[in-house]
Every structure is written in structure tokens, then in C-alpha cells.
């Protein structure tokens, strides 16, 4: 994890320099806003990585972590979410019922996602409990 945010923030800084050049040299607001928008997105992404783990801006190789981690093998919910978004947008242009179907599928898929995440947490807790047992 160490250093994970460094390339993102460094790259954002190079973009920032170029965006400033754009604002100074170019008189189009849309152009400057587009460049600044990208800088903001990259900085926010870097910030999110940093906030997720504080050592993300510390240099040096990552260290080994001991805690167990649950690994999902499959997710019908994720497929459902992808399909529902596609279906709903397709329905915008093709047939209204697909829009309704897409929205319904999205709600069902989010419900299923909640079940999957709960099951994953339960299995992790079980492994932790097992490892702590003498």
C-alpha cells in the first residue's frame, strides 16, 4: 500500500502545471475548465487512495499484511447492475418497457449485492474467530 497515492498525485501536479499554462495562454473558458476538471478528478482520486490508508504517501516498498481477507469468487449482483444500466439506457432510445425493466433489475441487483457483501463479511469474521481460537 505504501506510496500508492504518490504517482496519482504527482501526475495530477504535472497536469496542474499544464492546466495553468492553458489558462494563461488560451483564452477559451471551456478549454480551461476541461483541463481543470481533469486535474480535480485526479487529485480527488489520489486523495481517496490516501484517505483509505494513510501510508499511501509514504515512500518505500509495501510491507506484508497479516489480517485475513475475503475474496469474492463470483457476483451475480455485479453482472445484474451492469446489465440493468445497459438495459435502462437502451430503453431510452428503443422501448420504454426496457427502461422500467432496467430500473427494476437494478434494484434487485443492489439487494443481491447487499446479501453478497454480508455473506463475505460473515465468512471473514468466521475465519478470524477460528484463527483466534486456542
Amino acid at each position, binding site marked *: *500500500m505504501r506510496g500508492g497515492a504518490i504517482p496519482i498525485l504527482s501526475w495530477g501536479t504535472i497536469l496542474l502545471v499544464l492546466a495553468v499554462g492553458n489558462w494563461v495562454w488560451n483564452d477559451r473558458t*471551456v478549454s480551461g475548465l476541461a483541463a481543470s476538471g481533469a486535474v480535480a478528478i485526479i487529485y480527488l482520486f489520489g486523495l481517496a487512495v490516501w484517505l483509505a490508508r494513510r501510508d499511501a504517501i509514504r515512500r518505500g516498498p509495501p510491507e506484508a499484511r497479516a489480517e*485475513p481477507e475475503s475474496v469474492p469468487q*463470483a457476483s451475480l449482483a455485479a453482472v445484474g447492475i451492469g446489465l440493468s444500466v445497459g438495459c435502462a439506457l437502451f430503453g431510452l432510445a428503443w422501448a420504454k418497457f426496457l427502461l422500467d425493466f432496467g430500473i427494476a433489475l437494478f434494484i434487485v441487483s443492489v439487494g443481491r449485492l447487499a446479501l453478497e457483501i454480508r455473506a463475505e463479511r460473515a465468512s471473514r469474521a468466521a475465519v478470524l474467530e477460528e484463527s483466534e481460537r486456542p
Partner: protein
Amino acid sequence: MSMATARTAGVPRMTGWLGAVTSTDHKRMGVTLGVCSLFFFLLGGVFALLMRTQLAQSNMHFVSDNSYNELFTMHGSTMIYLFVTPMAIAMAVYLVPLQIGATRLSAPRLCLAGLWTWLCGGLVMQQGWFASGGAGRTGWSSYAPLSNGTNTPGVGQDLWVIGVILAAAGMLVMAACVVATIARRRAPGMSLLRMPVFTWTELVSMLMVVGAFPMLVLVMILLYIDRHGGHIFTGFAGAIDYQDLFWFFGHPVVYVMFFPYLGAAAEAVAVNSHKRWFGYIAFVISIMVFAALSMAVWSHHMYVTGGVTNQYFAFTSTALLVPAGIEYFDVVGTLIGGSIVLRTSMLFALAFFLQFLIGGLSGIFVASPVLDYQAYGTYIIVAHFHYTLFAGSIFGFFAGVYHWFPKITGALLRERLGKLQLLLMLVGTNLTFFPMFFLGNDGMPRRVSRYPTHPGWGTLNELETIGAGIIALGVLTFLFNVFVSLRRRVPAGDDPWLGHTLEWATTSPPPPLNFEAPLPPIRSYAPLLDLRHEQIDRARQRAELTAS
């Protein structure tokens, strides 16, 4: 880090085909995305062949003008949104966790949702062929006001817009997962400056996707609203605003379609030269600067509009030469003194660098506003971007395929068929795209379905059509090679090329959590090469001790 496989209590376990399509294993997702992209590549190739047949001679009537517009729009859109970019992401999803010693991808469910959103986008876009009025027909960039509801009515164009939104959103999500994986899941010891060259190229590409693709989603939503009475891109200012916003995505994506294949070619060159990649740190810095600059050059597509400040964009576009030069310097440095083996992957990699050079050098000319005014709208531009996108990306892609196919499938591809494919593709590519420079110089405009009889144009166009057919033969040879190699497998073993990076430290194909044996110590960006050198040194010392 110990792993606990989630026993899905309360959630039924999925097996068979359902298990395959819902798998959150990054390798499965990478292969699914890659195979779907390859299908779209073949589809886009068929569109190209139909276009080239129409242009084989002057005043042909093989397809109607409207169909030709649909063909070139769907060819470009399919290749960019549905093949080259997603294939770069597929390679990242499959290979990056292996190269950094991670057991899995970060946020795999999000990645899977992105994969299916992208696939829906591709299918929705192609659905346009069955719509009344036909598929999208305003080019892959769909400039407003040409693409507004008045000038291009019909469901087909709407489906194109929605397809692009879905495909872009899906790719954006997958790219974010790859960046998060690099940020959070590197193996112990894998510092940033020990990441392989390919991983670095994927990292900057995925950062570009994260930075630029939201703009594509936004501009397509605005275009959809505009098409349905929103009146957003109206008048001269509206047209310029559309182009400004579109190219903010449109130029970075060119590099998203280049860097990962550059990384693949670089890995192939280093491994087949039995040498470390030369100038690693300079390469990493140059690729970061290259990627940032490529997000600051977009308005060079708009020089002729008179609506942008040409000086800034000419400066940044020309500055691209510096990092590009460093990369070529690194390739030459790696080759010098290397123990070179001319396997198919190496030959494709060398062809990639040479072919891309033609695209890059012609790019210097069109980066200059004065020269671009002359070249704009002619076949010179078509030649330039096909040398960068087709010759650049595809040759790097095949270098990667021949390099990593044994890791993915456990079987070797046939070398002779590979070399035949390379020959066909080299001849085909240059026969198709090089004459375009002459046609463009002679004033032949792009995006025309028919051209008048003009001295020389007919012959050059005929040559290009023959070249396109030869490329198709090359692709068929590749498909045959894959079929034969999977049918009559020659086992590859875990590390058939004496690879440098961690993916070669595991089995072929890798197990579910990637690595069963402990990882080798990671002290540089080529840990397996380090290990081999240490073993050689130890053996030499032992031999010296025995002798003494």
C-alpha cells in the same frame, strides 16, 4: 496476507457457464473482456473491408453514400470504443495484478459491473444497424451540429450515443479498479520504482482514462439532450464547444490506445534481448510527462476552426517529441549488447516501434498549424492516424499476445504461423496506409464514398484495397494459429521465455489466487532476472570453491 475464500452463506454458489460469466477473478474478467474486444475487432475489420471495396475504384456503387457513412462511423467507433481501448484494459485487468504480485484485483465486483456495462454499450451501438435509418453515421467523433436531431434524425444515432456512454462508463470503472489495485495491492517489496515497465504504461493509461473519460460521458449526455430538443450545441460557439469537449477525451484516448501496447512491446524486447529494460527511471518519468502532455494537446484537432489558441497547442504537441524520443532511445539501449532472440513476439515488437515511427514523424508535421491547414481533411490525416493507431497499437498488441499467450493458456502459439502472420500484416499495413500519404498530398479528401477519375488515384486506391485484404489474411492466420495451438497443445511450462517479471513466477495458467509458491524477493523491476543472476553467481562461487 492470508486469504479467506468467502463461503457465500445465504447466497447460492455459481458454477458452469453462470460461474464463468459472473466470476470476479481478474483473469476470467480479463479473458472475457479480451475475447469480446477481439470479436468487435473482427466486426470493425469487416466494416473496413467493405469500405475499401467501395473505394477500390473511382465512382464505385458497391454501397450507398448513406451506408458508407454508417460504415466509416461504425468502423472507427468499433475499433476505438470497443476494441483497442478495452483490449488495453483487458490486458491490464489480466496482467497487472500478476506483475505486481497481487492475489486479486481491487473492487472486483465494480470491475465486473463495468465489464458488463461496456459490453451492453457495444451491443447497443451495433443494434443501430437494425434501426430504421441505419446505424450512427456522423463519424466516431460525431461533431455537432451534424449529429443533432435535425441533421441526423433517427434511432440509430441515438443508439450510437447511448452505446458510447455505456462503453465509456464501463471502461472508466474498470480503469479505476486497475489504478486502485496498483495503489493498494502491490506485493511486499514491490515499491513504485520496482514495478515492471508494462505496469507503468498501464498505470498512466488508466490514469488518463480516469481523467479524460468522464468528459466523454458528459459530452455524450449533452449531445443526447441536444438531439432531443435541448439546444445545447447551437451556432458557431456551440460547434466549437462540442469539439473542445470531445477532443479533451479524443486525444488522450489515442495514447490510452498506445501506451499499454508500448509496454507490451517493451517487455517483449527486454525479455527477448535477455537484458534489463534500459533507462528505467528515465522511461518512468518520460511516460508520466508523455501522458500529461497528451492531455494538453487536444485542440490541435481544431486548428482550422479558428476558435482555439494555436500557439499553446502547437507547443504542447511538438513537446511530445521529447518523451517519445526517450522511449525510442530506451529501446535502442536495450537492444545494444543484448543476446537477441528473434521470436515472433520480438519481431512484432520491433515492427511496432518502426511502424509507429512513421505515424509519429508524420505527427510532427500535423502538429504544426501551418502544415495542418494544408493536410486537414485529406488522406494524409487518415494515413497518420492509422500508422499510430493501427500500426502502433495492433503490432504492440500482437507482440503482447505472442509473449503472454503461454501464460494465459499454458500452450505455445506456433512460431512459423506467427511469422507468416507478421509478414502478411507488415505488407498489408504498408500497402494499405502508405499510399494514403500520396493521395492526401494530391488532395484526395477523406470521408468520401466516391471519388472522381483522377490520374493515379485509382491505382493507389486499388493497392490500398489489396493491402486491406492482406491484413485480413494476416488476422485469419492468427485465428488459425490460436485454433491449432489450443487444439494440439504444445505445453509452455511456467516460464518459456525466461521472463523478468512476477507473472512468470507462477504456473501457466495461474491458479485462482495467482501465486501458490512464495514470491521471489523483489529488489528491482526484474525480480526473476535478479534471481537467475544470483543463482548463476552462486553456482560460479561453488565451482570456484570446488576448484580451489
